[in-house]
């Protein structure tokens, strides 16, 4: 090595005690706009997790009441009919006996609650993960949110306009956070 050289040309290590760092952290501080967008998306993720739990219990209560009322109505309708005739009718229509159909409907209501709780857990985990890895966490959150709400819209078209403002704001926040996290990673501030 020559005396004037401050860095090893083979490995890049500093050889002079007063030399600046080999790779100056030009982008070490995340641009405040990107940090702001990611922080905002994280707040939305937490809010959606809480909202999913709350709405899950509300929908559970509503659905349970509706299903029990439906069961009572059907029981009243078939009160005087021979149970085997009722079962034959149900098996032809649904592939289940009368009691199996009741058990199935009640199970679906409980499953709906469990699904909402699982979704809330996923959003919560993504909220935690987004602090360390904002790009993959926000991408997954966007895919999850869009998919669940589009499925809901197809199964129950009346849900399209329910909470439309929250849906739009959350989607926008995620899209902006993805752009910010992607930009931040492209600049090289994140470790790959």
């Amino acid at each position: 090595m020559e005396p004037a050289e401050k860095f090893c040309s083979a490995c890049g290590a500093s050889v002079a005690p007063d030399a600046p760092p080999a790779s100056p952290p030009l982008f070490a501080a995340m641009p405040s706009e990107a940090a702001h967008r990611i922080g905002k998306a994280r707040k939305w993720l937490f809010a959606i997790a809480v909202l999913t739990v709350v709405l899950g219990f509300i929908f559970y209560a509503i659905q349970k009441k509706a299903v029990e009322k439906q069961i009572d109505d059907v029981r009243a309708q078939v009160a005087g009919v021979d149970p085997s005739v009722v079962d034959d009718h149900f098996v032809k229509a649904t592939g289940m006996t009368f009691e199996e159909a009741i058990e199935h409907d009640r199970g679906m209501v409980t499953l709906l609650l469990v699904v909402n709780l699982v979704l809330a857990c996923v959003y919560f985990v993504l909220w935690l993960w987004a602090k360390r890895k904002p790009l993959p966490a926000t991408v997954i959150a966007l895919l999850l949110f869009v998919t669940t709400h589009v499925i809901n819209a197809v199964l129950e078209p009346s849900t399209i306009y329910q909470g439309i403002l929250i849906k739009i704001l959350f989607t926008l926040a995620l899209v902006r956070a993805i752009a910010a996290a992607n930009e931040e990673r492209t600049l090289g501030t994140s470790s790959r």
Partner: protein
Amino acid sequence: MTEAGTCSSCAAVLKPGAAFCAACGRSTAPPPVKRTGSLYLAIWMYVALLGVQLFLMIVSKVTEDVFTAEVVGTVGFAVVTLAFYFPCRERFTVREPVAFPRYWYLLVVLAAVPIGLGVHAYVRGVSSLFGLHAPLGFEDELAHGWIWASVLIVVMPPLVEELAFRGVMFGALRHSLTVSETLIVTSFAFGLLHLSIPSLLTHIPLGFYFGWLRHRSGSLWPAVLAHACHNAFVLALVTV
């Protein structure tokens, strides 16, 4: 480097064959090409595939002909995947194999048995836990005979889904994410596009496994084989 032999950062003359600038310590290697647009292409492809799945759902709901909807859906899925793959296949072809000995193909086939048993037990467990009496699936395909069932369950989905998730999406995301992040995102996308939240618990690990095979081998074929063996085994379990 701005010009041959000088550092792009401080313009000092570089030593021949130097990996770093001796004056400022900067690497002389050209910066890696990061294709940021690939991330958005992967997201748009997911949205397009979701559109196909929803179209399939609507068609089967309106016509009550699940079989035709399945055929149309499979073709639509393939068309969308190829439409994204062919125009920019060089961008999506990421090969960074680690190690995949030939005898692992045999392990992949054998692994389908415990994995398939686990998935089947989970589905039965959920059904029994919540008192669900709905059929376990594949009735519409089997009603048209074994050949159609094999094509629609064992042959087409592994080919099309692996090309979509482990081919195009994996390659596109790999430009912006690390290997483990890419595996996680593609497995979520794979699980979500099956449009069933309860099955996320089985499909996300499955997607991760198929993605890992693709990463280890640098090829889609081990993942296609694993997917096909899994589907074949589950089909056999359901029908037996």
